[in-house]
Every structure is written in structure tokens, then in C-alpha cells.
């Protein structure tokens, strides 16, 4: 059975030995101890497992690890640089865009991907771009506000 033996995660090469059919989510969480991405549904419906592959948001629970091999993988743990939070992380803090926080990693990763594609998204682009992420606590309006703030900061 084919194995994946190296992944590029958050700027570092990580050695591992995983069946290539396993989900990227389980490899990140169980093999690499990066537990920021969460299991929520196992069918790509809730977005709690969202990570970036070459900057693009993917649902890691339905992404075989083989698809991530050779690509740049970014998880929530890799957003902070030199002790400084990503502007979207800052904006989540500022708007209080969380309650239980279980969806937060996935929301932020989806938001980062959205902002990479569209530097100044409109409200409806944000809603459309984030539609695949579920927050059961219902902090959606604050998340929209956070994405908007992060976009604005970048522009100024």
C-alpha cells in the first residue's frame, strides 16, 4: 500500500509514515499532533477541519493525505509568525467572534483563504465564501465583521 513519508507543514518538512488513503485531518491530528483542525462531520459539511493546501482552503477530513504530499500545508498553528497573530486572528479577538471556539480554527483558515483570493470581499462574497463553515453557537455576524476588518486593515 502506498505510503506518505513527508509533508510540508507550516513551513517545516515533517517526517511520517502514513497510508496514503488516510485523511489529511487524521494525519495532522494523530501523527503530527496538530490538533487545531477539528473533526466535526467527516463529510466536508461543517468546515471545522479546514486547512490550506498551497494557500487554498480544503476540508482535511475528506482530503486523502496523498493529495497534500508535496504541497504547502498551513494549519491554524502556522498562522502566527514571530509571536504575532495573523490579522484575521486579531480581528476575531477584536470582534469576539466565538463562543465555544470549536469552529474557530476552521473559520479562520477559510477566511484567510477567502482574503487571499479576494483582498476586499463584499459582504455577499464573504457570506458565499464562508457558507461551508458551520458555527453552531451562531457567531456568523461577528465572523463576517472580523473578515471585513482584516480586509480593511490590509488595504490601509
Amino acid at each position: 500500500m502506498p505510503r506518505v513519508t513527508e509533508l510540508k507543514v507550516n513551513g517545516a518538512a515533517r517526517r511520517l509514515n502514513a497510508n496514503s488513503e488516510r485523511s489529511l485531518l487524521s494525519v495532522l491530528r494523530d501523527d503530527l499532533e496538530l490538533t487545531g483542525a477539528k473533526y466535526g462531520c467527516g463529510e466536508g459539511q461543517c468546515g471545522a477541519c479546514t486547512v490550506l493546501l498551497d494557500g487554498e482552503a480544503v476540508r482535511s477530513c475528506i482530503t486523502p493525505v496523498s493529495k497534500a504530499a508535496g504541497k504547502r500545508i498551513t494549519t491554524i498553528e502556522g498562522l502566527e509568525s514571530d509571536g504575532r497573530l495573523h490579522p484575521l486572528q486579531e480581528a476575531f479577538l477584536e470582534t469576539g467572534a466565538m463562543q465555544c471556539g470549536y469552529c474557530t480554527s476552521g473559520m479562520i483558515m477559510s477566511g484567510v483563504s477567502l482574503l487571499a483570493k479576494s483582498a476586499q470581499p463584499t459582504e455577499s462574497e464573504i457570506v458565499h465564501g464562508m457558507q461551508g463553515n458551520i458555527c453552531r453557537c451562531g457567531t456568523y455576524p461577528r465572523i463576517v465583521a472580523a473578515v471585513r476588518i482584516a480586509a480593511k486593515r490590509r488595504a490601509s
Partner: protein
Amino acid sequence: MTSELTRRDFLSALGGGVVVLCVMEAADAQESGRRARVGDAKPQEISAWLHIGEDGVVTVYTGKTEVGQNIRTSLSQAVAEELRAPVTSIRMLMADTDLVPYDMGTFGSRTTPTMAPQLRKAAAEAREALIDLAASQWSVDRATVQISDGKIACAGRSAGLGELTRGHQLVRKIGPDVMLTPPTEWKIAGHCIPKVDARDLVTGKHRYTPDMQRAGMLHGKVLRPVAFGAKLTSFDDAAAKKIPGVTVVREGDFAAVAAPDAESAEKALAALKAQWKVEEGQPSDSQLFDYLKANAEAAEDRQAHGSIEQGMADAEHKLSETYTVAYIAHTPLEPRAAVAEWTGDKLTVWTGSQRPFGVREDLAGAFGIPQERIRVIVPDTGSAYGGKHSGECAVEAARLAKFAAKPVKLVWTREEEFTWAYVRPAGVIEITSGVRNDGRMTAWEFHNYNSGPSGAQITYDIPNHRIMFHSSKSPLKQGSYRGLAATANHFARESHMDQIAQSVNLDPLEFRLRNLKDERQRAVLIAAAEKFGWGKQKPAAGHGFGLAIGFEKGSYLAACAEVAVEGGRPKIVRVVESFECGAVVNPDQLRNQIEGSIIMAIGGALFEQMRFENGRILNARLSQYRVPRFGDVPVIETVLVDRKDLPSAGAGETPIVGLAPAVANAIFQATGKRPRSMPMTV
């Protein structure tokens, strides 16, 4: 630290500094059922305690759990306020049964009205004790000693909060006359303090139960029956056992596997060969409401006054209607999860739960061991909404761990969560009412079958009323849910009130005001109506406006909604909700709870419904069970009615009850058709 800790052990473990014990007030103790408990090792009258270490770190020990309702922050604020210390100096040690005093659980919106005042008193007692200590050590008049920003000071001298005890432990109970800071003078409580652990959430650092790792830990999987009540008639685990490292457990109808990695555990589960005997003829969702009525038990009066017969005789218009509410699932994004570890005869379980001590009882019962040998730790949890009272996942993980003699992590799949957790009760509600031509209500008879009595009480001034609850036999395992049955009862009552208003040609707002004397209820209604602009304009074509009021668990609210009906589907355009829960503890977090409740309520109002047949759930996946998403969110405006003269009530649940009836009434205005079933369709 051993689990068998007496109060003395606790105190010695805490070391030097100031300790204040919170003693349960008789009323609260009775309410939480404490008096009825026997055999618990811990002193029952102590509900929490607070310790100020010599390093000035304030640690609060409480059995309450953080599930997103933000009490880690709000309780920190309460303590910081009375101690005159920064919020950052407060550490909340929550929900670890070895380290905190017994607590019934985190439900019923009780943390703010019962735990917060006790912690405020404890902090105030500590403050006064420190002032006494400073006055005596410095030989100064206590009136000249000041505490602010975590320092005690007097005439040029200054000390940190923990310094003055000089290695001793000063233990106090809350005195009868302890002075609390009135809400009008609050500087930390009552303000928008950000969530204290927010940084760990935006960086992914916080470890929820499914994120836990233990040395040598195995991953568990449970073999689920093919239907509710099915019996395991044949079982073959030979293939599963050939997978390296796999342990198989079978005890009666319970079968499960554990393996060194999740992949092997999944393979082992798939390799189990099992046959089940299914109990046929279980009710399906299509027969649900008839079934609940047919199996109803004798009624229980919840609120009654006057004579319904007389009230109906006085009425000039009469109305009888039936409303139904489907079963819905909490769908917490973190599914049930537990990590169990046996060390000798001692069991430790980490699990997401609202009732750590309840889970400990479940474990003690399952394994026949004393509770003192069990430690349950609840990491801050990925939501619950009333859905995490039970300990079945903890018991399953502990069974596997015992058999495998290694720590085991068990995380329920989404399908398991939908199928094997419990749901919000479905219900049938019948209302008969009478009104005079002048719009005054004369009679109100209300029967709730199965869904529950919460929020069925009326704040309307109706001289003859009777409110009854009939329990029934539920086809699905049902339990608590945010606001309990208050959503169902508010949906029925406020829909009905709207229809009566129409029968006497009165505006829904005017009609309600004519039948309301309760000043707090009137105030929130007027506040919401003003913000919404009720009566100022007519809705656009295909749109409707609706309003509803509510009261439950000490909080009052009113909601106004604008709904557009497009292509046969209702779309909520705008919601204004006013909310009054006494003195507001944290305005921004209260708004967060109100916004979140409104959004969560959209699911039950318009989409959510458990479908089931012959003991099987038919839509146990997120792709088959629609919950609110970004695109469903209306413009939301909240109005906080801050009553600093009234004690603070809990506010994590009640804001959910107003949305459905306001939307129902708006749908009626838009379409001329009145929805009487949740989820509503047009």
C-alpha cells in the same frame, strides 16, 4: 493528589494565602437537590472556594463547566470586581471532580444567578479579610486601607494581595454582612471584558477532549446496533482480532474495539461480523404526534387561576388550535468524546460534559466502584446547548480502557452523535382561548403533550387560565435543550395570541399591551417595537412583520421579525430582539448570546427535524440535517434593557425562545397562512 479529599486535605493542598469558602444558601441547596443526596464524600454545603496565593494569583474552584456560554469570563469578572483586582489575575479552576466541590451541573441558566453571587461574596469577604490583615500588621485604621488594581495600600505602604499572609493560611467563610459592590458602581463586572481564553481559541492551542493525548493511548470505536433496542444475536470478531494491536470487547449487546491508531480501529470495527434482532413496529416520524397524544399521561397543572368555563362564557370570540414541534438535535460541533485512563483501581476520564459529577456517578454505577476513585475532568467544551448531560461516551471509553488496560480515546462520529445522543422533545400543544370584542382576554387553556412545561407560564393578565403538562412516551431518547420546551410553548402561545388579535381586529402590539400588566414584560415589548419601527410602515410585497414576547428563567424578551417569502420559502430578513435579565454582567457577551440564540433558533424554526422509522434515524448526517449557515443570517439588532436595580439572571438560553413565533407571525402576514408546526413551511 488522591481523589479522596476532605475539606482539610483541600485546604492543606492549597498552601498559604487566603481561602474563602462559599457556603450554599439553603434555597439554592434545595433547588439543586443537594439535601436529598447521601453518601457523597465531600461537604455538601460548600459550593465553591476561592484562594489567593502568596504570589497574588487568585484561583476560583467551581464545578461549573465552560461550554461557550462564557462563564469563565463572567465569573472572573465577578471575582475581580469585588477583589479590586485585574481580571488577568483570576484563574478559574473548573469542572475537575478531584479539585472542586460538588456541583449538580451547568444547566438551567443557574451559573449567573447562583454561582456568581456566591463568588462575589467570597471575593468581597477576601477583600475585607485582607483589609483587616493590613490594618493589624501596619497598625493603621482599616478605613484608611485601600485595595485597588490587585494591591493593598495605606499611607505609602503597599503589598500584593497574597503577601500579607506570610506563609500562613487564613480561612474564612462568607460572613452574613459582607458588603457587595452595587451594579451601579461596577468597574469590571457589567463591562465588555473580552473572553479570557480567546487567544487560545484563535490559535488552535486550546485542547478540547478530542485533542487529548495520553502515553500509550488507544483509539476506540463502538459497534452500534442497527436500530434502537436491537439485540446482538451473533458476533464474530476473529477477523478484527487479526489486525495488529486490536482489542475487542463484548459485554452483552455492547461491542467495541480499541487499536493503537484510528485507522486500525476503523478497520477492526468494519471487520466485526454481527447480527442483530430488531424490534419491529417502532413508531416513525409520520405518526409521531398521534403517538404522543395517544400515550399521554394524566395532566399536571403548572399554573391555574379562575374558571375556564366562566372565562369562555365571558368571551365574544373563541379559538381552539393545535401546534406541533418536531424533534431536533443539538448538533454540538464537538461531538461526544472521552479519554479514559485506569491507574490501578482509579479511573480518570476527560470528557465534554455539562455534568462532571453526574458523569462520575454514571461511571461509579457502571463499574461498581466508589465515586471517590473516579476523577472526571471537563476541558472547556465545544458547545453543548443542553445536549451534554449524560455520560454514555465516558462509560464506553472507560469500558474499553479497562479491558485493554491502556488509556482509550473515543470520539463519537457525527452519525453516532445524531443517533445515540438525545434530542429536544417533540410535542403537541393545544390551546383554547376566549377574548372580548374590546381585546381583553377572558380565558386561556393550554395543554402541552410531551415537549415540557418550561416557558408555558403566561405573563399576560388573563383572569381565567389553566396550563397543563402531559408527559408521554417518547419514541426517541429525549432530554434537555437550550431553553427546554420554552421555544415550543412560546411558538404556540405567541402564534395563538396573534390569531386572537386578528379576530378582534387589533394590531398585534396593541393587543398584547392591552393584556399585559407586567411592567418588565411591557418594557421589553415597547423597546423592541420602537427599535423595529413597528407600525411605522407596511411590509413590502411578499414580506411580513411579526412580533412575540417571552419570559423564562427570570429573563424577559420581545422579538420582531421581518420575513420575505420567495419561491415558496421563508427568508428571515431582519430580527430585533430586546432582552432584560436584570443587571447586565457583560454587555458584549450578552449580545453574543442573544445573536447566537437567534441564529440557532432559525434551525428549529425553519429546517431542523429528526426523521426516523423503525428504530432508525433517517437523516443522521450534516448533509441530511440542515442547520443555519452564514447565508441564513438576517440583520440582527439587539436591545439590552439593563436593570441595575435587579439581580442578574442567566442569559444563555432564554434569548432563543422569541424567534420562532415572531417568524411564524411574519409568515402569516406575508402569506395569509398561519404555520402551526415547527419546522415551519409555507
